[in-house]
């Protein structure tokens, strides 16, 4: 993840407007099982990404080739498929629009955390040390713990001052849907859908990087 965050930072430097969107969607039933789908959309920076991918390295950051990305993704999928509680792993890499999606089914929230752990291992970063999920079936409470990590800020600090502004329109979107109504959620910037079964949170990438926004949230379902 760190390696690719480096690449994302580079892409961010190169673009003048919304450079990328990272959308994470979790659909969970009241028993704690569900699906997760993560989408990285770089289509708005398509031209620039295409230029970048023609290079092997840019300012000290290795740029993965299409083949490398495919191999890495295949490896992630293989690992996920062998993770207990994870099934139906699917992925798609669109090198025309530069959109990557990865989805799978999880049997319980622990498997969801294992999903993150697998990604950590693959991309050699500690996602699970600062992000994890819990679900208390008894109290019908789903919570996400998020601790700000200085790693991203460290990578971001390598970006020249002038270029940091260019990250202004990169967003992280998180959608969590349930099969029951939501009673409450604790994040001040998140909103509950009209049908009261989904929570939507969209934050700026820069806010995440500099720690001014957290992803911690506690969602309580109606019993």
């Amino acid at each position: 993840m760190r390696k690719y965050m480096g690449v994302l930072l580079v892409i961010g430097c190169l673009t003048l407007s919304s450079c990328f969107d990272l959308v994470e969607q979790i659909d969970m039933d009241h028993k704690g099982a569900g699906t997760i789908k993560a989408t990285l959309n770089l289509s708005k920076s398509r031209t620039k990404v295409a230029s970048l991918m023609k290079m092997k390295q840019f300012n000290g950051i290795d740029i993965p080739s299409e083949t490398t990305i495919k191999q890495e993704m295949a490896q992630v999928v293989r690992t996920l498929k062998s993770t207990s509680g994870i099934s139906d792993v699917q992925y798609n890499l669109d090198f025309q629009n530069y959109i990557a999606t990865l989805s799978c089914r999880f049997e319980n929230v622990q498997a969801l955390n294992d999903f993150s752990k697998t990604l950590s291992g693959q991309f050699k970063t500690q996602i699970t040390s600062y992000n994890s999920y819990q679900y208390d079936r008894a109290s019908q409470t789903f919570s996400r713990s998020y601790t700000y990590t200085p790693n991203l800020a460290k990578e971001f600090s390598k970006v020249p001052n002038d270029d940091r502004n260019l990250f202004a329109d990169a967003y992280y979107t998180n959608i969590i849907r349930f099969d029951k109504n939501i009673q409450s959620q604790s994040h001040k910037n998140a909103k509950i859908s009209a049908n009261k079964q989904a929570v939507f949170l969209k934050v700026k990438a820069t806010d995440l990087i500099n720690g001014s926004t957290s992803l911690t949230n506690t969602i309580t379902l109606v019993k």
Partner: protein
Amino acid sequence: MKLQKSYIATLVGLSIAATSYGQQDLIQQVPENASFVVVINNQAIVKHSSFEKINEVLEKLGAFDDIGNQDVPIERIHDLDLSYDRSAYIYKSDTDSSYYTGILLPLKAGHQIGTNLFSKLSPLPASQGYERRVSTDGKTQVAWNDHGVLILTGDARRYYFDTDSVAQRYGIELPTYDEAVTLPDYQYDDYQYDVVPDTADIDDMADDAADAAYTIIDTTYLADAISDNLHVDFPPPALETEESLVYSDYPVYDTYPDSTYLKEMARNAKNDSLRNAAFASWLAEDFDHYLHPAQNATSHKFLNTFDKKNTLVHFWSRNLMSLYSQSIPYYMPTMQYAFVNQMEKLAYGYQDIVLDLVQDKHTLKLQGSFGLDKEMERMIKPIYKNKMNRKFARYIPEKHIGYMSLNFNSEAYLKNFPLMMEQLYGSTMYFAFGEVAGIVATALEIALDEKAIANVMGGDHLLFINEMKKVEKEYIDYQYDENTFDYKEIKKTKDDYIPTFLWMFTSEDQRIYKKILKLGESKEKVTQTEGIYRIADKPNDEIIYALFKDNMVFVSNDEEQLSAIRTNRFPASRDKHIKKQIFSNTMTAVTHLSEIPETINRLGIPVIKRWDHLVNNLSAYGDVTITAQGSKKGRITGEMAVDFPQQETNALQYLLQELLKTIDK
């Protein structure tokens, strides 16, 4: 790298140093048989730059660190014993057995070069007014008088000693590959081969072998066998490191006591020593001929013909073959590879080659030319005889990033192509194609209707890269349903920039193009609107447009431009300089460097950090211009010119200043 930089800097410094002392030009001492000669025109270099700047650059490159001695330190170019007002020469001469590199440097009056530079070399008897020295290995000799110094060095050619007679003469021990390798005395008949019964069941054999190798240990038995009070301290398991993964039983090659290898090394060392001794003796014998050449290089017309006021460095080579032979591996000519033969055939058509680095105010130019032999000129001259279509002048865009023009006679090219092919491949010995090259050439001559083909594409082309055009590009975004936060992909557009181009060429007979486009129309890849063809193979592909007007074909990715051409509304440039370049040169390529930074920025092309400064500075530059002229008076000429920023007095001063900044970093 530092040493190499320092060495080069020293050489440059030595060749451009100090005071005025009017003496004969050292060109008299450049031998007539030199393969190539580099003339360093000190007067022009000094005139166009400054001692202070040159001194500063050389000092920072460490040029003075390795020259001089402790008693007489060299700190500035003024401390060198060299003269400014005459040129320095570097040449190379080649023979079958060896090559020599000669460096001729003008000296100032009252110089002490013997003490200052050559004190460590061994003295030789003086002769004819020259002090002489020789290096320890005998492979370099030096001689100087009041006016100049000759440094002559070189080496023997390895392949010269590969023939038996020569090897014998010099005591070289050639490797003999047909020697039988002596094997240890091994009695093959005593070897007991495993007797395999014909009816052996391979599976059973495999099972038996596996059973023999794998023994299942009854651990219960073992546990009972081990005494209860047995204490054994087992060391902790070794951590697997990279070193431990190395298979240590395999001997390292360098210390492997192979007598054959050691013999080979000893033989090579001995042979090298003999070759060096041979070369040293040849150098001693030939040195006087180089010091006082019977015939000097002034007989070569283009060696001494150049703009003495503005040419900084002048390079002359006897012919292309001389240059080519410097670059091929030493063993290739002797092996007579077919490729080498072909290259030689091609190379012999070209005669002397000249390259000049010229300072022209804020422009630095690299001008080159090479002569053609009669036969080559006869083949090539008609190809360059072509008139550029004058109507092109009506369609030169006002704003562009760069352009390229090419003008050749395609009819003449097609007529001469079979002849050139036969020339090149005709006598090839190793490829079967060589035997039929002549037949193929004749068949082409018969089959091709050169005039008809030339009517399709005359040979004059003009291509402009225009300024960036704003276009709308699609991208994928998401639309969220407020009710469920389900999202779907939607296509949005955003402004983007793409470079546009305009290509035009003469075509008297446009039928084939129109027929191809008609076929494209039937396949729905091409559409036509008011005479402008729109070509797009796939939906996401860049759209190309084509237009036929008068006897010209226009191709572009900007429909507006073609539409303006069609309706005679095209705003043409009135720049006479562009027209002159396009119509008087066989080939022209121009890039307006000042447009590059904005182009890169708009296109979003990533720029590596260390190039940032250079790219940003480009806005202060002028043009890079490359031109070439076809055969004129038996020569083909070309030029590459760079217009530098006008911040300093001239281009050379600007370069030196930039070099100082780079070194400081």
